[in-house]
C-alpha cells in the first residue's frame, strides 16, 4: 500500500506531462491516452488508470487541454481531448525541465565517492 501511494505521488506531476505528450500528436480520448502510456512505459507507470481522469480534468480547468464530445464507431459518446497552445508551451517547458532534472540526477547517482567531505 505504502509503495503504491509513493508511486502515485511521484506520478502526479509526471502524469500531467505524459498526458500533454500523448496529446502532442493529436486529439485522443482518455482510454487512448492510457493505452499510449501503457505502451511507452511498458505498463510500469500507470498503476491506477483512474487517476488519469482527475489529471485530465485539472489540465482542462487550467486551460492546457480542451475537450469535445464526439461519437465513436460504435456510436458511443466519447470525450476527446486536445492540446491548447498553452498546453503545447507547457509541454515544451516541462520537457526542458525534465531533461535538466534527469541529467542532474543521473550524474549525481553515478558519481564516485568524494575524496573529502567538506
Amino acid at each position, binding site marked *: 500500500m505504502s509503495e503504491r501511494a509513493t508511486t502515485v505521488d511521484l506520478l502526479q506531476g509526471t502524469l500531467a506531462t505524459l498526458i500533454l505528450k500523448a496529446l502532442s500528436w493529436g486529439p485522443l480520448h*482518455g482510454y487512448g491516452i492510457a493505452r499510449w502510456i501503457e505502451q511507452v512505459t511498458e505498463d510500469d507507470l500507470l498503476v491506477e488508470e483512474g487517476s488519469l481522469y482527475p489529471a485530465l480534468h*485539472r489540465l482542462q480547468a487550467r486551460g492546457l487541454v480542451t*475537450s469535445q464530445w464526439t461519437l465513436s464507431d460504435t456510436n458511443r459518446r466519447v470525450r476527446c481531448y486536445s492540446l491548447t497552445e498553452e498546453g503545447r508551451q507547457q509541454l515544451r517547458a516541462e520537457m526542458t525541465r525534465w531533461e535538466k532534472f534527469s541529467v542532474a540526477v543521473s550524474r549525481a547517482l553515478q558519481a564516485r565517492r568524494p575524496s573529502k567531505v567538506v
Partner: protein
Amino acid sequence: MSPGRRLRDIFRNTAKDADDEIAYHLEMRERDLRERGLSPLEAYVAARRRFGNLDTIRHQLRAIDDHAARRERRTGMWTDLRQDILYAIRGLAKAPGFAAVAIVTLALGIGANTAIFSVVNAALLRPLPFAEPDRLVFMWNRTPSGEPNPMGPGRMLDFRRQMTSFAGSAALAHITYTLTGHGDAESVPAASVSSGFFDVLGVKAIAGDTFHDGRADPSSVVLGYGLWQRRFGGDRSIVGGTITLNGRPRLVVAVLPRDFPWPFVNARAGAAGGPQLFVPGGIGDIPRSAAREDEDVSGNRTAGYIRLLARLKPGVTPAQADAEARALGARLSREHPEDGGRTAMIVTAREQFFGSVARPLFVLAGAVGFVLAIACANVASLLLGRGAARQRDLALRRALGATRLRIVRQLLTEAAVLSSIGAVSGAAVAWWGTSALLRLAPADMAAAGAAFDLRVLGFTAVAAIVSAAAFGILPAVQFSRGDLSAALAEGSTRGSASRRSGRIRDLLVVAEIAVALVLLVGAALLVRSFAALSRVDTGIDTRNLLTFDIKLSGPRAEYQVRQVEFYAALQHRLEAIPGVVSAGSAVTLPIGGDDFGTGYYVEGRAKPRPGSEPHAGYQIVMPGWFKAMGIPLESGRDVRDADAHGAALVVLVNQTLAREQWPGEDPVGRRVSFDDEGTWMTVVGVVGDIRHLGPAVPPRPEIYQPASQRSFPFMAFVVRTAGDPYAAVPTIRRAVAELDPALPLANVKTMDDHIATALARPRFLSTLVTAFGALALALAVIGIYGVMSWSVSERRREFAIRMALGVRAPALLASVLRKALLLAAAGVVLGLVGARIAAGLLTGFLFGVQATDAAAFIAAALALAAIALAACYIPARRAVRVDPVALLR
C-alpha cells in the same frame, strides 16, 4: 457564440459526463482484455481493478469540474458585464443628445446632493478633532424658560467641584485683546481659560507646550494657528518670545495645531470665528472678565460671563449629566438666592458647535433630495422614450436566446453607466458648488466648512447606485417583456408595449410636476419670509450709518472716568469731521452684537420672588446715541454730561418697558433698581423701541444707563455721514489715531451690512431653496417637453387624417394641450398636497408668513402650470403644422 456559452454547454451536467467517460474507459479495457483471451467475467473484474477506486475518482472529478464551472461562470459574468458596458457606451455615443441631457440632469441632481452632504459631513458626521469628542460637553445655567446662559464665577466653581459626572472640566470666557508691535495695532478675539482647558480637550501644541492643570504662568499666552501664520509668519522662534497684549508683555508658550477649530462659544448653539489667543485665568484659576481683568471674582455669582466645558466620565451619558446638572443647579440656587432661581443644563460639544447648522441643513438636504428624485424621473422618462425605438432590437435578442434576466441586466448596466458618468460629473459640480455655497453661507455654517473624504465619496457612489436603480428599473422591466411577435409585428406603428410605456411616462410627468411644486412652494414661502424680514422696521435709521468698535487698554481702561473722557473726546472729534452729521456710542451694537440683560425692580411694588423679577435688555450709552441712531425721544430728556459719576443715578427706558410697567402713564420721574438694596435710579426719558435682538425678534423692554455712571473699556460707535459712509473711514481713522495711535478700529461696517449679516441665514436658505426650486422646475419642464414631443409624434398620422377630414389646426392644438393640461393639473393637485405637508416642516424658518400662505401656494402652482403648458405648446404646434398629404403618403 461567446466563450462563456461554450464552456457552460460543456459543463452542463458534469456528473453524467464523468460517468460516461469512465464507463467508456472500462468498456474499452474489457474489450481489449477479452481479446487477449480473458473470460468476460475476468475481463470485467480486471478492468475495474486496474482502474482503481471508482467512487474516489468520481468524487475527485466532480470536485474539479464544479470548481472549474464556478470559475467559468464568474469569468463569464465579467465578460458579459464588459460587453454590456461597451454596448451601453456605444449606444450613448450613438445618441449624443439623449446622453448629454441625461448626464447633465444626473450631474446636477447628484452634484447638488453631494455638495449638501459634504457640509452635513463636516458639521454633523465627521468627528470633532478632539480626543474622544463624544465625551465633551458644555454646561450652562438654565433660565426658567429653558434657555442656556453663561454663569457667574462662584457658581462655576461650585459646579466644577460638585459635578460627579465630570472626569475633568475647564472654564472659559471671551475677551478681546489689543495686540501691538509686529504691525498695526489690532483687536484680537481671545479666550481666558482655566489652566486645564487643553488637557480636558486632549489637544497638543505643534510648537512649545500649552499650560496644564494647575501649572500656568499667569503672563503666558497660547497662539492659535491662524494668528500665528498671519501675524508672525509661522515663525517657530516666537515660542519663548513675548508679544504685547493691552500694553503688557506676555510670554508665548505654545502654538495650537491648524485643525483646532475652537469657535466662539455662544449660549445659543452656533459657531463663528472664535478666539485666536488663549491666556490662563486670573486669581483662583478663574477666567478673566473683560471688565475686571485682575480682580478676585471668586465670590461673584451674578456676573454671567463664564462658559463651562467638561469631559464626561467614561460611561456617563449626556442625559445623565444633564439630570445631575439640573438637580445640582436647583440646589445651588436654593442655597444662594443671588443665583436667581436658575437650574443648569448640559449641551454636547457637537450640538454646541453645529446644532444651529443642523436644521437648515436638513431643509436643504430635503430640497436636493427632491431635485434628485425629479432628475431620476426625467432620465427614466427619457429611457422609456428611447426604449420604444429599441423594442424590436431587444425582442430580437430574446428570440435569439438571451434570457429575460440577461436583457434586464443589460438595461440596468446601461443605467449604471449613465449614473456613473453622472456621478463623476456630479462630484465635479459638487466640488465647485460647495465653495460657492460656503461663500453664501451664514457664519456658523461657513465655520463648519465642507469635508470631502471617503464618506462623501461613498455617499456619491450610493447616490449613483440608488439613482440608477430608480431610473433604470422601470425601463428594464418594461422592455425585457420581449413579446416577440407583438414587437416585430408592430412595425412602424407602435403597439401595446409603447402605449404602456407612454402611460408610465405620463405618470412620471405628474410626479415631477408634483415634486417641483413642493419645492417651489417652499421657495416661495422662504422668499416671502425673507422679504418680510427685510422690510421689518428695526427702529434704527440705517441710512449712511457707519459702525465700528473701540476697545481701550492700558491705564486709560482702568478707571471709568477716564474711559468716559476718552469716549466724549472721540465723539467730539468725530462730530467735527466735515460730512459727519452725528455720532454716538453705546456698549453693545444692536442686532447680532452682544446682548446684555438684567433683572430689575420698580419702586413701590411688592418685591418679586428671586428669579421671577421683570427682565430687560441693558444698554449703556453716551449722550447723542439716540440722535445718531435715529431713535426718537418720546418723552423726557436724553442722558447728558451732567449725569456724571457721583451725580443722581438716571436711566432711560424704551416704550415697551414703559407700556409694561406704567401703562397709560408717563414713567418720567419713576424709579427703578438693578438690585434689591435700594440703589434707585430715576427714569428721565422714554425712547422709541428698536429690535435689539434682530429683525425677527420683537422689541423687548430696554433700560439705558449713561456711560458716565457705569462704563466698560469697550464701546460701539456709530457715525452718520452726509455721503458714502465708507468714504469717511480714512478720516475717522485719522481722528482716532490723533487721540491714540495704538488704538485699533475694529469691525468697521455700515449698519445696513451689519443687519444683512444678521439676516444671512434666512437669505441663504431662501436663496438656495429658490435655486433648487428653479432647477427642479427646469428639469420638470424638460420632462414634460419630452413626453409631449413623443406623444405628439405618436399621433402624427392621426392628426394628418383628422386634418384631411377637415378638422382645423386650432381644434387639434386644443386637443393636444388638453392632455398636457390634464397632466399638469394632476401634478399640481398632488403637489399642493405634498407642499402643504412640507410647509409644515418649514414653520420654524418662517417669519411674517404662515405655512399655509395662500399667495405662495397659488403663485407657485400658477407659475408651474403656465410653464408646463408653454413647454407643451412647442411640440403641439409642430404637430399641427404637418402637411397631411405628405405624411399619409
